[in-house]
């Protein structure tokens, strides 16, 4: 993974010193709340319902075990001994003291981490596929691109006071696991006719109040132009994005208002001014970035042998076999598999993990996965490089600590924002809804029978739970001071991304398990053979679901 040199370290250290000064000035009354707001936000600090929340950047979801242990230690010293994995692959702690945040940032800097631009109206953490570098369907490793974007966007002098937040995602595989259609800029690494990898650029996707699927503004861009082209897009947005209404300030509104062709033309115009300038990437720059994402020292394994041995173990212990089937996936290298650790056990807030378990995973990652671990936008964790012959001992260690919930990609693998329990923006709580659903659908065989199902819950329009792109989306709304939940169906985050359609009037929290059950029963009764929920929905449309849910609701 990427390792700081003295330049990177200096930038992060100077940022900590700057923020320490800003915090001192704020506490001394020399900075107003209004002035301090963007400064703390751009250092990851929100002021929440009960306490501040610090969002720590995990660039494109990659962590080494030293960093994991540092996060565990920080959560013990400064917080309540657990952390939350966000839907943008970051790590959040929910109870830090505002005055201690500079110390936390200094401890992060000591392990090459930071909280720069994890919030505020600026370019946020660039996200990608949690299986980057190991996925069997990968065309190009997106991580060097992400790192180059991270560096370019970090403390960019021109784009620190944008109309609104700005999110970039990169995908380099056939299947899109980075939700690039739902980002302000989505980049897909694609070959041209000559087989040279370049960038397909989408712009103006996003969730929130007005969900939009991104539009293509460039079908193939030579990768050396990546940063100048991004700069041109950001400049058009910075100058012309709306600033009068924060709900209309995202780039998607500007792209809609101008029309994608006019937007593209404006970007082209700005691009001509910076194209081929010093920000044009060099082959050396790519080589340098790529040098950090080389293959670990894989053992030479006989894939067929390993597979037979694994099959035997799975047959001998069906619970293990089930976990292998649900929580591990194919690896580019023969004899290896990637393991997803579910943070969606019933009874725990989705995405939360204790300091002790972080340390356990650090030990396991050191032993079985080359000392690295990844966060996913589905709020789980990944050990990307595990030899098939190590899976059994790994599983035993996970199972002993309740970390082997075999539900990846199924109904109970709920994606859920922290909601009204923590977040001051939320209209409604989201964690209790997730817990009630996990408790209701506790029959794992039934859950498997339902097949792959994304259920996403957001506590408000900001859509941190990405409810618009869940096959089933749940949105917390406020109705005259009471918490209600609106349900949408048919969202999808893949390359065939779609925005879910609202089912109808919203429901009370207590009714939610029944409502979801009726939706699932409708699917089960209408599905043909092996059809997934999404396929059935796309075939029959929303009406049959609507009829059955509301017919029995009275």
């Amino acid at each position, binding site marked *: 993974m990427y390792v700081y040199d003295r330049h990177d370290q200096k930038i992060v250290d100077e940022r900590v*010193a*700057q923020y320490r000064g800003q915090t001192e000035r704020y506490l001394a009354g020399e900075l107003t709340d209004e002035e301090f707001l963007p400064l703390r936000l751009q250092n990851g600090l929100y002021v929440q319902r009960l306490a501040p929340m610090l969002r720590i950047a995990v660039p494109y979801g990659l962590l080494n075990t030293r960093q994991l242990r540092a996060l565990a230690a920080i959560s013990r010293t400064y917080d309540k001994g657990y952390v939350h994995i966000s839907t943008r692959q970051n790590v959040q702690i929910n109870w830090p003291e505002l005055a201690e945040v500079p110390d936390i940032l200094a401890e992060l800097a000591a392990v090459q981490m930071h909280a720069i631009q994890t919030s505020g109206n600026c370019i946020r953490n660039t996200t990608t596929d949690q299986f980057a570098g190991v996925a069997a369907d990968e065309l190009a490793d997106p991580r060097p691109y992400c790192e*180059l974007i991270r560096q370019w966007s970090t403390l960019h002098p*021109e784009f620190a006071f944008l109309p609104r937040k700005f999110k970039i995602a990169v995908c380099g595989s056939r299947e899109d696991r980075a939700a690039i259609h739902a980002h302000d800029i989505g980049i897909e690494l694609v070959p041209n006719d000559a087989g040279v990898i370049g960038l397909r650029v989408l712009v103006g996707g996003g969730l929130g109040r007005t969900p939009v699927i991104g539009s293509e503004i460039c079908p193939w861009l030579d990768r050396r132009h990546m940063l100048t082209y991004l700069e041109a897009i950001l400049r058009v947005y910075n100058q012309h994005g709306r600033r009068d209404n924060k709900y209309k300030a995202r780039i998607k509104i500007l792209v809609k208002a101008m029309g994608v062709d006019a937007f593209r033309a404006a970007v082209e115009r700005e691009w001509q001014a910076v194209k081929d300038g010093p920000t044009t990437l060099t082959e050396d720059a790519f080589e340098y970035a790529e040098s950090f994402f080389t293959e670990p020292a894989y053992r030479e394994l006989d894939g067929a042998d390993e597979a037979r041995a694994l099959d035997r173990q799975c047959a001998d212990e069906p619970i293990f076999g089930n976990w292998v089937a649900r929580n591990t996936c194919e690896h580019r290298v023969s004899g290896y598999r990637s393991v997803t650790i579910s943070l969606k056990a019933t009874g725990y807030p989705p995405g939360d993990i204790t300091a002790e378990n972080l340390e356990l995973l650090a030990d396991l990652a050191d032993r079985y996965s080359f000392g690295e671990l990844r966060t996913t936008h589905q709020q789980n964790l990944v050990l990307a490089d595990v030899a098939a012959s190590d899976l059994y001992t790994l599983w035993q260690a996970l199972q002993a600590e309740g970390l082997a919930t075999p539900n990846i990609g199924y109904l109970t693998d709920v994606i859920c924002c922290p909601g009204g329990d923590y977040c001051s923006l939320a209209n409604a709580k989201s964690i209790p809804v997730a817990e009630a659903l996990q408790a209701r659908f506790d029959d794992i065989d039934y859950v498997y029978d339902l097949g792959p199902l994304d259920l996403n819950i957001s506590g408000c329009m900001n859509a941190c739970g990405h409810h618009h792109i869940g096959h089933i989306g749940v949105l917390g709304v406020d109705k005259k001071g009471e918490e209600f939940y609106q349900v949408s169906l048919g969202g999808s985050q893949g390359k065939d991304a779609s925005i879910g359609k609202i089912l109808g009037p919203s429901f009370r929290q207590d009714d939610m398990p029944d409502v979801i059950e009726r939706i699932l029963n409708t699917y089960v009764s209408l599905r043909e053979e092996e059809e997934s929920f999404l396929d059935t929905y796309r075939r029959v449309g929303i009406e049959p679901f609507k009829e059955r849910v509301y017919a029995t609701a009275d």
Partner: protein
Amino acid sequence: MPRLIKDGRIVEEPTAPMLHSLEDWQALTDKTGTAVQLEPGDDLSPLLPHLGSIEVVAVSFPAFMDGRCFSYARELRERGYTGEIRAVGHFIRDQLTYLSRVGVNAFAPAGDLDLDDALGSLADFTEFYQASNNEPLPLFRRRT
């Protein structure tokens, strides 16, 4: 006498430049030695043919959160403007590094911003990833 930060020092200015609004400035027949103030939302293009003759471009901050002027300053420098770019209005000291990096070289804040403190903020960072006015090459072209 009014004081401001200019080229990294606090200086006194006996006579302030006559800052024209963009509209008034466009009406001037002779642009030589003129000074124009850009508000967020103004169109930069009328200035471009006259970059050699303008003496001061002021970029205005009616509110510090409005970041459009960062792009104006950067674009002016990219197009070869070498005269003064002066930030005026309600920016805060924590924005000074960013402002100087996009090419602002004079700072005349409204309100009670202490110029000595502000001067200190200009040195918040000594290393940068991006190409900018104070560092023509991005870090990826400078790593050793």
